[in-house]
């Protein structure tokens, strides 16, 4: 009985290719959207994970903030001074390197080339903490850092795009109002997700930055790396204790700074991405719902349009149940087919978009199975009402229908 119903349903669908196509358009779009979002979401999550582990997993970041009492005086959390850096250097046990770090965006000029770039002030310890390497030239010397010399290290993009075919070492760069000499070129770190270029960068000794560019002797962040991954929690506790002491924060008061380790950052980012993926998927699922309603709508129209056909079938000896089953099978076949097309388009779309936004293409079979099952279910659920209406038609009236 089911096989026969299937035959008739398939015949009926093939007889009306255009109508069938329009019926499933909503499902196709909905499924494709869900597949694209979920696939790119998974790719982004994976990308974030690998980028963070590249940064060095035994890294701590000390940054301002923490106490966000509304209207309180602590809204603007204080930055860190050089005294803080020295104290940490002096007192921390089990630390491999400490690098103060501050940055802003500024106009960078080399010859006739002019770009807006990130300008960073830091010390050469950054190469240890953040795993930065120079491919040409060298890092800052201690004396250059102490004296606040106008020397700089440039990122790979500046090297490639602003110094094409020229010798970078010894060339002069104008950063804001200061001129400095290039002493090194950083290894390319690659594009970050969604297009930000991590290599469009000029690095100055921190003191040079503070005096000539930043206008203060503060630093926004302090990076630290532990001797081992295991000691990170201990190191974090030490940092908190030292900073609270230095800032004279009472027992019952909250800190006005944050110490983050990369696992936390990674967790926060991944859960953010997860929330975003879920949210976007929900929006896409709404379009699946709309697709389902589209199927119901067209099936209802189709029941009216095919009233006479239904009358003929009933007169010939079909039972109401068989008519109902035929309409249900038609709806389920249509939407399952729409699901398949949507999955194909979605995978194709995701495979096309992923490289454009620098995210790996992550294939998740379970999602495909779910999308397919869901779209078939949409057909059954939304096909039910029209199918029941068809089955309940009075054969005499149906036959009289024009």
């Amino acid at each position, binding site marked *: 009985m089911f096989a026969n119903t299937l035959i008739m349903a398939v015949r009926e669908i093939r007889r009306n290719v255009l109508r069938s196509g329009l019926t499933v358009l909503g499902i196709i779009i909905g499924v494709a959207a869900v597949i694209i979002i979920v696939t790119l979401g998974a790719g982004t999550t994976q990308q974030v994970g690998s980028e963070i582990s590249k940064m060095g997993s035994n890294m701590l970041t000390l940054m301002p903030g923490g106490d966000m009492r509304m209207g309180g005086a602590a809204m603007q959390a204080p930055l860190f001074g050089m005294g803080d850096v020295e104290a940490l250097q002096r007192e921390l046990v089990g630390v491999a390197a400490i690098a103060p770090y501050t940055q802003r965006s500024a106009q960078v000029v080399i010859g006739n080339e002019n770009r807006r770039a990130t300008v960073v002030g830091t010390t050469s310890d950054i190469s240890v903490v953040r795993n930065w390497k120079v491919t040409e030239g060298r890092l800052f010397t201690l004396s250059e850092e102490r004296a606040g010399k106008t020397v700089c290290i440039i990122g790979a993009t500046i090297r490639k795009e602003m110094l094409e075919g020229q010798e970078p070492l010894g060339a002069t760069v104008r950063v804001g109002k200061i001129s400095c000499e290039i002493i090194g070129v950083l290894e390319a770190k690659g594009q970050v997700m969604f297009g930000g270029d991590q290599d469009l960068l000029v690095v100055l000794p921190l003191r040079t930055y503070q005096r000539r560019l930043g206008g203060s002797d503060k630093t926004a962040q302090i990076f630290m790396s532990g001797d081992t991954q295991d000691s990170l929690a201990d190191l974090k506790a030490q940092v908190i204790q030292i900073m609270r002491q230095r800032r004279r924060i009472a027992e019952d008061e909250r800190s006005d700074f944050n110490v983050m380790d990369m696992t936390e950052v990674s967790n926060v980012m991944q859960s953010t991405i997860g929330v975003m993926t879920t949210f976007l998927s929900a929006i896409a699922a709404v379009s699946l719902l709309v697709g389902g309603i589209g199927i119901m709508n067209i099936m209802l129209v189709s029941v009216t349009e095919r009233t*006479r056909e239904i*009358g*003929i079938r*009933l*007169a010939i*000896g*079909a*039972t*109401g149940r068989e008519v109902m089953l035929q309409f249900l099978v038609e709806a389920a076949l249509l939407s399952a087919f729409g699901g398949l097309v949507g999955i194909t388009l979605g995978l194709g779309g995701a495979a096309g978009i992923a490289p454009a936004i620098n995210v790996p293409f992550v294939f998740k079979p379970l999602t495909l199975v779910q999308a397919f099952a869901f779209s078939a279910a949409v057909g059954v659920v939304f096909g039910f009402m029209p199918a029941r209406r068809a089955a309940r038609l009075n054969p*005499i009236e149906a036959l009289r229908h024009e």
Partner: protein
Amino acid sequence: MNVMNGGMQREPATGPLVAFEQVYKIYGHGESEVRALDGIDLQINAGEFVAVMGPSGSGKSTSMNILGCLDKPTAGRYLFKGTDVTSLNSEQLAMLRRHYLGFVFQGFNLLARTTALENLEIPLIYQRIEKAKRRAMAREALRVVGLEARENHTPAELSGGQQQRVAIARAIVTNPSLLLADEPTGNLDSARSHEIMQLLTTLNRERGLTVVLVTHEDDIAAYAQRRIDFRDGKIVRETRASRAGAA
């Protein structure tokens, strides 16, 4: 009689094939009451060829619908091969239609955009007959109506007379006990009408198919062995022809 089992076989005609006993069909209530059938008694034996006549609104179609188990009487009994059909549920009625009844309509009522062969296969699909046998039966029925060369034509590609012949083929492909034809020639010209009537006469004579046919025209009714005249929901006259097939 077991309604549910295949039932291609014909039982020996001990009683009438179908019988109405005081059948009423009443629409509406009180002032607006319409007695479409007003106490009909009727018996039709297997192998008969019956023409039902009467003015418009006299209850011809209503009685055909009841005979065809598409409708139920308001009161009275309808016996099909001795079984009271009025007590059956809609599934059982569908089984009766599937196995014992064939319909031919004025408007042909073939499925659009469906080939002649596929149209003939539909009742066989509902009978769960497997594909090869289904095809063979459909082709044989097309041959009987002389349209074996048109099996892949859709209704739009066939003339009215050809469509009605396909419809007759669809009605007889299941080898039913009773063929009901409500004004089958109403949409056809005179020559085509007589072709259809000759086909029905042949089926009646050679296969013993019981035919009940509604018509307005005397020369169409003349093909039948027996003529029943309706008026206001009542049978007003019954005539038996000495010989069938006037033309």
